[in-house]
Each structure stands twice: as C-alpha cells, then as structure tokens.
C-alpha cells in the first residue's frame, strides 16, 4: 500500500545555522498511528511544520498521498489537520465559530452537522457559544483538536497533544485518536510521554539531533531492543554478589534482599536456568521471583543515549 506521507532526504538548516533535520527519510503508512519520539530540540516539531507548510525545507521532498507539499500544496494541505504544541487560538470567537472558520479556511463548504459531531465528540457542544478566552487550558486544547478535525482531514498531526492536560482529558484524547484511526485517519503524534506512545502507537520513530535513529513496529522494537529482568527476592540478604556468580550480569538491590539479572529475551540461551541451578548449588534460597520487560522509556533512553555517546 503506498505511503500516506513520504519524506525523502529532508534537511532543514535555520538561518541561525542550526541543523534541525539531517537527511531524514520516512514513510507513514495509511491508517496507522505513528509516534515520533525525541528529546527537546530533536527536530520533531520542525519535521511536522515542514510537512504542514509552516516551515520551509532546505532540501529533500515531502509527498502527501503522492502530492508534493510545495507544487501541489493546495491538495496536499487540504488532507492534513494539525494540532500544534502551543495553545494558540483566537481569543474573542466562540467555540463553534472557531471550528466553522477552520473548516472554511481549509476550503470545505459549511457543514453544521459535521461541526456539531466534532464538538460533541470532544465534549464541547455544550460550550459552543462560549468565548474562547474564557475557557480553561484543557478546553482550549479540545478546541484546537476540533479546529484540526473540522475539515475532515485524512492525516492528523498531533504535536505533544497531551502536554499539560489532566488525566481525564488525556484518556479522552487517546480514545478520540483510536476512533479517528478506526475511521481510516492516519495519525502522527509526537510526545514526551513514552507511555502514551507505548499505549497508542503502531510504529515508533525516534529522532535525535535531527536524525532518525530508528523507525520500527512498536512490538518488534520492544522485542528487539528490549531486555527482560529477572528479580529474585532472597530469603537471607547478601552482603555482596558471590564471585561464583561472576558469569552473570547481576545487581544487588534492596539492601541485599533482591538479586536482579538482566538478559536478552530474544536469544535462545537466556542464562536463567543455569543461574537458578548455580544459586541452588550455592545454597542461596529465594522466596519469590518475577520477570519484567523493559519499558519503551528504557529503550528510548538507551537509543538516545547511545546516539549521544557515538
């Protein structure tokens, strides 16, 4: 299936000389939720801004459903909705007028029924006559999403959509994003909350210093780069790890009460069984054991850290 967004060799150097993006190539598949992760200043917002036409690229090409964002900007942009990171909405308009304005701006004929649907989906219908400046930050965030959805985009960019919002709104947004995906909308989100990406994304891209470090299916990424940890709760605390256990990368935690073994789950010989046998031979007894997968956050930190060290 052809990519919804096809980015090839994209670079961006600002007038200040800052290299925000360096030779980025990326394909976004139709109907997926793609999470773009990266530390502050990694180039996430620049990448989104270029696709949406807010920032000019230095070189490279960006196609939206095969349409060049510069040559065919009208058709390309009509398919895109953007919820930017900053809370930026008109001050004196009503909620409904703001959404209606956005629909018209993107070249769509008025459709009050669609606007009503969007406002209801975002729990804004009862506040439709409210002046935007009187709304709370969370409600303003909802209005920004409503504005982005007003023209029925096929691709939705959410730049840090849940930054600074409460738990309820965050859950609502996740729900909305899933609903949009079910309707065939492709979603690209950037987030600082790794658990958000872990919860929602089909694929994950990690960007750092303007370069794409990795693009992978979430499950495969976690399987390939993830580690498992075996934690043994000891019956008697250990003062130090016995030298006989030197073959295993172990850590002693909780004042010697916990022995932790980190291993690669993707290989055949994980080393767990020999370790347990050796513990038995050494008379080190444990009363509980559990294994845990590394979180996406740990994988992210490891990826970003690895790149920084190179």
């Amino acid at each position, binding site marked *: 299936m052809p990519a919804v967004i096809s980015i090839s060799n994209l670079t961006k150097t*600002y*007038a200040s000389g800052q290299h925000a993006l360096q030779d980025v190539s990326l394909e976004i598949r139709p109907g997926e939720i793609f999470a773009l992760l990266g530390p502050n200043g990694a180039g996430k917002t620049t990448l989104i*801004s270029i696709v*949406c*036409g*807010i*920032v*000019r690229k230095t070189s490279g090409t960006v196609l939206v459903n095969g349409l060049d964002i510069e040559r*065919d*900007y*009208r*058709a*390309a*942009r*009509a*398919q*895109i909705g*953007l919820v*930017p990171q*900053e809370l*930026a*909405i*008109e*001050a*004196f*308009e009503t909620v409904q*007028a703001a959404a*209606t*304005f*956005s*629909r*018209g*701006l*993107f*070249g*769509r*004929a*008025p459709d009050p029924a669609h606007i009503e649907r969007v406002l209801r989906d975002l729990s804004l219908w009862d506040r439709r006559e409210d002046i935007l400046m009187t709304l709370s930050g969370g409600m303003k965030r909802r209005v920004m999403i409503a*504005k982005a959805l007003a023209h029925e985009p096929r691709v939705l960019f959410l730049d840090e959509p849940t930054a600074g919002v409460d738990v309820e709104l965050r859950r609502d947004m996740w729900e909305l994003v899933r609903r949009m995906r079910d309707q065939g909308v492709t979603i690209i989100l950037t987030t600082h909350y790794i658990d958000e990406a872990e919860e929602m994304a089909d694929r994950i891209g990690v960007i750092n210093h303007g370069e794409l470090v990795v693009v992978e299916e979430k499950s495969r990424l976690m399987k390939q780069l993830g580690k498992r940890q075996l934690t043994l709760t000891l019956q008697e605390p250990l003062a130090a790890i016995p030298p006989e256990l030197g073959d295993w990368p172990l850590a002693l935690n909780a004042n010697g009460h916990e022995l932790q073994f980190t291993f690669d789950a993707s290989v055949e010989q994980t080393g767990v069984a020999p370790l347990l046998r050796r513990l038995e031979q050494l008379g080190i007894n444990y009363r509980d054991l559990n294994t845990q997968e590394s979180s996406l956050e740990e994988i992210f930190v490891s990826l970003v850290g690895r790149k920084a060290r190179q």
Partner: protein
Amino acid sequence: MKPLAFNGHGVWAIYRFEMARFLRTLLQSVLTPVITTALFVVVFGAAIGSRMSEVGGVSYGAFIVPGLIMLSLFTESISNASFGIHFPKFTGTIFEILSAPVAAWEIVLGYVGAAATKSVLLGLVILATASFFVSIQILHPFWMMTFMLLTAVTFSLFGFIVGIWAKNWEQMQLIPMLVVTPLTFLGGAFYSIDMLPPAWRTVTLFNPVVYLISGFRWSFYGQSDVGVGISLAMTVVFLAICLVTIAWIFRTGYRLKN
C-alpha cells in the same frame, strides 16, 4: 479530493472573521472617527473658516471634508489590515493560515478585502456626518468612489505589510504615527498647496499623499492641486509597489516562515 483552483471558502472565512471583529467593536469603530471628524469640521471650520471663508469658491468647512475622509481612510485602512495580520502572528494562530490550502493572494484578498471594506464604510459614514455640518457637493460620484476604493485597498495593502513587518505592537504604531499622519497633514488635507510659497510647493509635490487628496477633492468640487490623471497614476503606482512587496514577502517567507 479534487484540488482547489480557488479557495473561495478560505477567502470568505478570513473575510468574515475580520468583519466579525469589526462588528464586535462597531460602536468604537464608528464612533471614534465620527466624533473626530465632527470636531475637525466644527473647530477648523469655525476657527479658520471665520478668517478664510472660501478656498477656490468652496467654503473652508466643505473644502476640508475630502481631506478628512482621506485621513480616516489612511489611518483606518492601515490599522485594520495591520492589526488583522499582526494579531494572529502575536497569538500564534498564524500557523493555521500558513498550513491551510490558501494561496498567498487569497490570504491577502481576505485580510485586505475586509480592511478596505471597513475603511470605505467608515469613509461613507464620515461623509454623511460631515454633510450635517457643511454643504457638500459631489460632482463626480463615480470617481469619488473609485478614489475611495483605490485608496482603501492601497493603504490596506500597506497596512498588511506593516503588520507582517512589525515585531511588536510599538512598531505597529511607528509607521502610522511617524510617517502617515505627518504626510497627511502636510499633504493638503486642510489647505490647498497653492497657498504655500513656491519652494514649499515643490517640496510638497514629493509627498505622495498630495496626489491622493487632490484627486479625491477634485471628485467633489472639480478643483485639484495637481492633474487628476497624475493623481490616479500615483495611486496605482503606490498600489503596485505594495503588491510587489507583498508578493516578495510571501515568496521569501519574510517574517512569516522560518
């Protein structure tokens, strides 16, 4: 999705948004220039008109009316258009305009169209107000409307440029206060440049506002400081300069896009 050849809905959305802002502040938008005009006509008409009853066969009070309308057209056009585009820059909502499928000229059409509409409406309100105080005749109504429209559009384009150029609200006031108002007062709004000594008359001819006021006054009373053709040509030249500047702004992304 069929590509748009002309985003009419987009232009209308911008135009309607800007007009809604005007209507929200209708009272202050209309009342301020009306009171100012009334004061100008009454004070200037009474103070100077008592010493100088006529200029070229027209009572002094009536003589200054075209200049007063032009003064309002200049200031209102610049302020409406500059505010219209500067406010989204200031609040950050400009991202939506820049990411929408609207061409640069469509954005200009929406903002400048609304700013010019407001200015023309105000110009007509001022004309109606002045007619309560002095007797006004309009010899060439078609040309009166043409000059009014051309001036409103031209200065709205100029205001649009100021709104993009300005980095803050202080800079927004700079051009109208330091350039436009002095040029208007020195541009024959309250006197005929024939009244000036020859040397100053020559200097005044470098002031583009002279041509605008002169042509506009001609459409009322059939008398002008410079030829009507020259007035019209100068207005069109100024309009063309503004259009070229705006085209350059959008081509380069000057103070709009990184």
